[in-house]
């Protein structure tokens, strides 16, 4: 029964998202586009954190590299957008494979520090390699051409781009969900709960962690690739550790225990930011208060706390 209600709610939400441009104020197309992309970024982070139990502080590196990959290919090579995205996914995965190779062998705070260090190295390269990345100004001024596959889409139209993002994010989220439900995903969750026991079962924990980390990087790369045409600029800030903190905060706000938690967290984060900054400049202060209250009283996040309560109710 409750399963059906949940599925129904999800379907209604999806229909609402598809129909958004026809009923919401125009500005909210931008807000929801950002929520979707950041939600995917946070969900890719949650594969590493919520499922596998690795707290990475360098996840923005893959997001940012994806964004640069799409921005630079659009600027210099003018590829169709779909191919740019494929490149972004590849770039995110490759970078995650390299960084993960060195990082997943460590645990807890050492893993967090190492990912932070690698993330800041990538940031430094983008910030200083002016001839390639245009330094602190980043890559801007690229134009959107074709989508690819012979589809005739005007990507420059915000409503069209919103639907493109929606399709990509829903498909990517479905894939991420299936990965989490697969036997591979089960092993990742087992690793979070008890890595020794998984190792004693004869499984190579390090390989599984590296695989999860690389997958997370690939999806973060996709989110970054989707972000480039939305922001119209790929800048080093997107690789900075403060950007790495955003999916952490979103996952905690929404709840790491349920698949859709990071998406709900992304919506909370961006809506609160939009509303609060239109009243006061001190948005970070309010975010801090909300976050402190969430961690103290609703440790399972907004979605997690609600679902826990609702599913247990007889």
């Amino acid at each position, binding site marked *: 029964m409750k399963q059906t209600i949940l599925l129904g709610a999800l379907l209604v939400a999806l229909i609402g998202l598809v129909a958004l441009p026809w009923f919401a104020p125009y500005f909210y197309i931008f807000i929801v586009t950002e929520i979707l992309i950041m939600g995917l970024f946070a969900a890719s982070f949650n594969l590493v954190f919520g499922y596998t139990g690795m707290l990475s502080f360098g996840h923005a590196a893959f997001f940012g590299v994806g964004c640069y990959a799409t921005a630079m290919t659009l600027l210099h090579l003018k590829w169709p957008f779909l191919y740019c995205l494929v490149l972004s996914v590849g770039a995110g995965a490759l970078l995650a494979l390299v960084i993960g190779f060195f990082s997943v062998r460590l645990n807890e705070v050492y893993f967090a520090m190492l990912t932070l260090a690698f993330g800041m190295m990538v940031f430094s390269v983008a910030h200083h390699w002016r001839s390639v990345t245009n330094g602190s100004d980043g890559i801007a*001024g690229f134009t959107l051409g074709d989508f690819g596959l012979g589809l005739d889409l005007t990507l420059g139209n915000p409503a069209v781009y919103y639907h493109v993002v929606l399709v990509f994010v829903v498909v990517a989220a479905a894939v991420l969900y299936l990965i989490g439900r697969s036997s591979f995903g089960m092993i990742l969750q087992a690793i979070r709960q008890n890595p020794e026991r998984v190792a004693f079962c004869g499984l190579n924990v390090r390989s599984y962690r590296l695989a999860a980390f690389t997958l997370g990087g690939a999806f973060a790369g996709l989110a970054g690739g989707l972000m480039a045409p939305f922001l119209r600029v790929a800048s080093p800030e997107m690789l900075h550790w403060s950007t790495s903190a955003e999916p952490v905060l979103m996952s905690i706000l929404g709840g790491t225990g349920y698949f859709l938690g990071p998406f709900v967290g992304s919506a909370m984060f961006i809506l609160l930011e939009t509303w609060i900054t239109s009243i006061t400049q001190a948005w970070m202060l309010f975010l801090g208060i909300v976050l402190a209250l969430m961690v103290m009283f609703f440790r399972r996040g907004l979605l997690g706390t609600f679902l826990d309560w609702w599913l247990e109710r007889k």
Partner: protein
Amino acid sequence: MQLLKPARLLMTLVAVTGLAGAPAWADDDPIRIGAIYILSGSAANYGKFAQQGIQLAIDEINQDGGVMGRDLEVITEDSQGKASVAIQAARKLVYQDQADVLMGLDSSGVAQGLVPVMPELKKPLIITHAATPDVTGKLCNAYTYRISNNVAQNMKAAAIIAGETGAKRWTTIGPDYAFGHQSWEFFGKALKEANPDVELMSDTAFPRFGAEDFTPFINGVMAAKPDGVLISVWGGDLVNFVRQANNLGFFEQDMEIMFTVGAATEVLSALGEQMPEGVWLSTRYWYDGFDNDVNKRFVSAYIDRYGVPPSYNAEGAYAAVYAYKKAIESAGSTDGDKLAQTLSGMSLDAPNGTIAFRAGDHQALVGPNWGKSGPMNEKHGIRTLADLRILDGEKVSRTIEETGCQL
């Protein structure tokens, strides 16, 4: 019963004027100006001066009956000096707040990011401060205008003055983004063209924008022993830079020193006597340099209201509001496309003289102001500019072909 007749007449009159007036009421809605400036961080003071300039212009215009009978109103957003933030702010201003026109931008990096988005927003943008040549060059478009001078103009002027000093070996200290790098590039090119025997040193210093410690960069430049240094550090960074350079004896060296935006009154008030005497300072507009009625009225109104002389950022913002007033009145409309067309080639009387947006690239041909820091102006608490030179805007501007702009 007779008494009712005039009452009924009155009622009818009210009803008729009410009905006729209904569409006119919609037009009583204020005309909204969306402004994007840096309002936080080390250059926040620039945003504050710009806001003051806008408010002064709007209050003057509204007291005078507004624009086509409608009041002006401003909504300001913080760019935080980041292109992505500014692009989101512009979308919010246009789609959420229903801004009719946009203005502002302090940073070259922000301008390079936002300008390519303007054709989608379909609203005119007058840049009042950001100086990268690209936005009225290879990135130019039908909606983007600039009322303040750009790096190419100011560096051409700097090269003329640098050539006169006779200094041969030049280096630079500038912020590590578009502005610092392009200042050096355009200065070097113009200087080399006029004086082929000068040496552009490879030892240059580009500290991060917002860096607090400039000591290593200052020491590095002193150790390289140049004859001249071009300094494009600006904002709160420039205040920190000059204080630290004083401590290290930078200004006692035998070097020509040129600050490309050193005569910003925001910086001069913060530094007071700490700004050394006898260095070259430039600004887009010097409040004491223009003997015309518009300037006299602007400067005295500004000082009366805010107690300090207007900076170039205040002047650019003030002038841009009047440019929009003139454009809306000549177009007879607030339609974005019509306004963008009207601005092209339009001229107006600004505090820094009669200026016009060149039709070929939408850049105002305004002359940079250069002078040597002189004795303190005790009343205003800032250095005066001695030997003030206002270079000819036409002469220091690139040709349309050189800009690479295709409209």
